[in-house]
């Protein structure tokens, strides 16, 4: 491990990410990381991370080290067996009583949500260190789903599952669909439909790949899962603890984000949001005939989707993962009436998609615009209108950094296309004053996905 670390360029690398909500408070929690490569050792400093909270999204002191160890191992030395020395070169500083190093009275039921967020933040920083290993982000959290109700003959049944999502894309490799990812053990995450149906008054109507939900890229992320479970009894209730319903998994190296997680109820053919805070549901009352729809996140993409080999896009269409319309809107691949790729129209379509992207000029300012835990990004009104966003919408900037910089738009009345960022924003983007870079909206579902 030390020799692998020593091969990496010395320096400080930055990233940040959010817990969307602790379940009770709509304010996100932020993890801030400065990762330092210093000779043959690594220091991960989480100073600036939000304080512990009253909701369940806290974890004890072990998780931050666990996350750094897991991700560093995967990026630098995935093949050799783990031994006593593997993690000696790593040291971690996590502020006491922050939500990643919580102390007594802080509930920690959502520790998996926190651990996977730290993984996601460390992976963004390690992608800076070793770009060829950088990888699209994952579903985050465990996606705890509980359907419970009275058991025939007394007592309560609880059906519990934690469905996997698509994995992130990396250089040369598409993500895989609805499967355990590189940073977690290889356990089942869903029950067999036949077991569910023989044990509980539920029927699994559908368990399939969530078509269209990948993070686009030159290599695309994996597709998530779609699972519909029908409630057969008169009473039941739904509880969900999940993340990345609002802030979807990021893409890397110009790749797009994957579809966000979504856990909803279909009643009489209509979608119902079972809670005010998406993905965090506590005892929502279900009725006979309701469908609990679990849709898990797609993995983030790698590289510009307009550079994806059209043959690979055509294969995704042949396999019905993408529709021809999605292929054209998201990858600029145009098909002939016979189904083959129309090379000339594809080139033209790709050019026009590229030119429709919105770019901004970066200006360095003295202060970061931090609003509570949220990073705000000031967006000129004309640009906001090009992007079809309003104040408070999530946007991302793409600089030299492998992962995008995300923030909530603050629409400002200036007549230019300048975005100014404070020192931490510039560091996170690995960008300089005067750089031209792309800004875009962060949507919970890619284009063409309902």
């Amino acid at each position: 491990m030390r020799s692998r670390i020593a091969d990496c360029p010395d320096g400080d690398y930055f990233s940040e990410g959010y817990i969307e909500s602790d379940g009770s408070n709509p304010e996100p929690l932020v993890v801030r990381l400065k990762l330092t490569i210093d000779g043959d050792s690594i220091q991960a400093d989480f100073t600036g991370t939000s304080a512990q909270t009253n909701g369940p999204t806290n974890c004890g002191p072990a998780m931050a080290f666990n996350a750094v160890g897991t991700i560093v191992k995967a990026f630098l030395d995935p093949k050799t067996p783990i031994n006593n020395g593997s993690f000696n070169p790593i040291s971690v500083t996590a502020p006491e009583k922050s939500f990643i190093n919580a102390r007594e009275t802080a509930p920690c039921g959502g520790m998996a949500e926190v651990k996977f967020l730290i993984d996601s933040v460390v992976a963004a920083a390690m992608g800076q260190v070793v770009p060829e290993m950088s990888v699209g982000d994952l579903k985050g959290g465990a996606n705890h789903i509980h359907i419970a109700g009275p058991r025939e003959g007394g007592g309560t049944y609880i059906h519990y599952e934690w469905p996997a999502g698509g994995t992130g894309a990396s250089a040369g490799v598409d993500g895989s669909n609805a499967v355990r990812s590189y940073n977690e053990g290889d356990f089942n995450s869903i029950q067999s439909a036949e077991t569910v149906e023989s044990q509980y008054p539920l029927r699994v109507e559908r368990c399939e790949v969530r078509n269209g939900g990948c993070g686009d890229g030159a290599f695309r992320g994996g597709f998530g899962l779609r699972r519909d479970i029908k409630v057969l009894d008169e009473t039941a209730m739904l509880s969900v603890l999940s993340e990345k319903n609002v802030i979807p998994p990021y893409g890397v190296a110009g790749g797009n984000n994957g579809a966000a997680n979504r856990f909803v109820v279909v009643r009489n053919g209509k979608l119902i949001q079972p809670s005010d805070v998406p993905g965090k549901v506590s005892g929502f009352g279900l009725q006979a005939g309701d469908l609990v729809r679990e849709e898990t996140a797609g993995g983030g993409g790698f590289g510009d989707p307009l550079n994806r080999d059209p043959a690979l896009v055509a294969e995704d269409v042949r396999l019905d993962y993408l529709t021809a319309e999605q292929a054209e809107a998201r990858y600029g691949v145009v098909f002939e009436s016979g189904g083959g790729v129309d090379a000339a129209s594809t080139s033209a379509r790709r050019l026009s998609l590229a030119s429709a992207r919105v770019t901004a000029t970066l200006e360095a300012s003295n202060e970061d615009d931090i609003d509570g835990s949220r990073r705000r990004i000031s967006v000129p009104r004309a640009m906001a209108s090009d992007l079809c966003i309003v104040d408070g919408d999530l946007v991302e900037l793409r600089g030299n950094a492998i992962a995008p910089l995300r923030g909530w738009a603050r629409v400002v009345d200036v007549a230019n296309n300048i975005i100014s960022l404070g020192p931490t924003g510039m560091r996170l983007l690995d960008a300089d004053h005067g750089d031209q870079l792309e800004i875009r909206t962060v949507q919970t579902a890619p284009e063409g996905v309902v």
Partner: protein
Amino acid sequence: MSDNPQRYLVGIDVGGTFTDILCLDIQNQSLLSAKTPSLPGKQWEGVLNALSELGISAGDIRAFVHGTTIATNALLERKGAKTAMVTTEGFRDTLEIGRTRRLIGGLFDIKFVRPKPLVDRPLRIEVPERTAANGEILNEIAGYDFEPLAELLKDEEVEAVAIGFVNSYANNKTERDASAALGRLLDDVPICFSTDVVAEQGEFHRFSTCVLNAYLTPVVIKYLETLSEELNDKGVKAPVNIMGSNGGAMTLPQAAKFAAGTFLSGPVGGAGGAVRICEMANVDDCITFDMGGTSTDVALIYQRTPRISHDNQIDAYPLQVPQLDIHTIGAGGGSIAWVQDDGTLEVGPQSAGALPGPACYGRGGEEPTISDANLILGRLPTERTLSGGLRLDKAASEAAFISLSKKLGDGDIVQLADGVLRIAVAKMAGAVREVSVHRGFDPRDFALLGFGGAGPMHVFLVAEELAVPQVIVPRYPGHLSALGQLLADQRLDAVRAWGGKLSAVDPAELRGPTSEMKTVASKTLLDAGFESERQKHTFTVDMRYVGQSFTLSVSLDENASSWDSVRDAFARRHTETFGHADANNDAEIVNIWLVSLGVVDKPTLAFNGGDGVDVIVEERKVWFGDDWTDCPIYNRDRMETGFSFVGPGIIEEAGGTSIVPPGWRVTVLEAGSLDCANPLVDV
């Protein structure tokens, strides 16, 4: 003396490196054997070569049993049939998603790519059918127009069809209806439905097993047809049987319907042969150590019965058919030693195979292998030719090890060869722990049975590593797998999802399903030539306490009038397995299993000992532990029954070399096996 016109039982074992043929002449209790290189892609040719090498009259063969790796090879090379799957609405991706596990490693591997399902997504076709968990049909398929679907399958030139419907384990009527309807529309395309292959709950595992079966059926049929035609041309009139993964033989028609039951066709013969060796050596419990040129297979035999495992996986695909619990690792005589990315030494799983083979074979191999390490350490002869006419080239071995040594920063090649051997032994000991310690057995309570071409050479080191007190090396160790094959009974395994809580089900309700299962099995065995007095049927049930999800297997008297004995047996098994039982908790039956044997005559195997003259053929320096030691070389053919010596010693014979470290006491048993006592263990 007039010749018995049907005097030969022939077993053929195709390994990764060699094809072994063994012929038992029941007229005069002698064994004939031959070994020819396996021919990748043309396995049947290797079989014919081996048969002609043997030089017996084809018409005198009474029975012909074959262990084949054809199914495994076809799967690993993805050369199975173009397969379609017909399934319940909403479940076309079950094969792809499974239960979201990676199933083949991938931890820390950012570049992990999940293997593709065996059926292309457009060929996973949903039909409007649904059965509930209680067996009630919510949506009938009878009356559905399958014609457009059949047309699509024809246009796509599909070669095999799997049908898998949700909850068919509870009621398979819709699967049967769909199979019949499609069968009428598709000529010559094999169709199988999931409950016909395995009738247990769990759609992913059942569908996966069914698809594996469909995917491999055309390959296995084609191979078997070619083989039996060629054998016929050679004058073999005896029926050709194939070893099944459950350790029993299958007829060709059975194998053609149940390709998924042939994955372990190659290695199971060794376990069957080991049971016979145990009987003759008066040993109840042993662990087999079958080391060939490419891999090592280990299996645990408890009370002379090989353990069966039901939840299996081949490559990335679950396979829920009963198989002998054989654990295979990629370490054989031809396994190559190499330097990993992190600069450490590793052995296998790449193998030099039969061609070019280890460097010492002198056939152009340049990679250092386990066999080369043995040669450098004096454990194989350089001065004399081996049986089969091979003379080993020590200079080539040394050259290969010198080049390996350079990658590690130079050093003594003897030390390096010793290190290579130690790594291989550690891996093989790990495989033994896998089938013993990991299953709740202590390997020190077992004998280790060393066979296969390279088994007797390494089994003593593995026994020392694990403190196993006793090693047995059978006569003709290179051919034990083939011997096991030619003595194998026919075996059918059938399962039915049936049951309920013991408190709620009357034992009389068992009569219906058990007698149905038995009728089907009896008929199949009768068709294969086994009259009822040569049939043996044994029922077991999978049981658990109410609320548990994992089951234990318990034997069942299908005519019992109460559940008392089943309840007691389950409590005993639960205590053996988990250390406790719960008399107050209701238990439930989940599945009924039936094992049906067609029992074949088993000739006694009493191999004559030698005359005891000139037992020691030479003496040479051999590396043991950490130094060179003078070591006598024994000729096994000359060793008398009862002959005994204390190691070190090397025992040479056709098809195997036993390398006995210092201190071990070796005794020749009546049936010819070597009984060897570990000096480092007090028994």
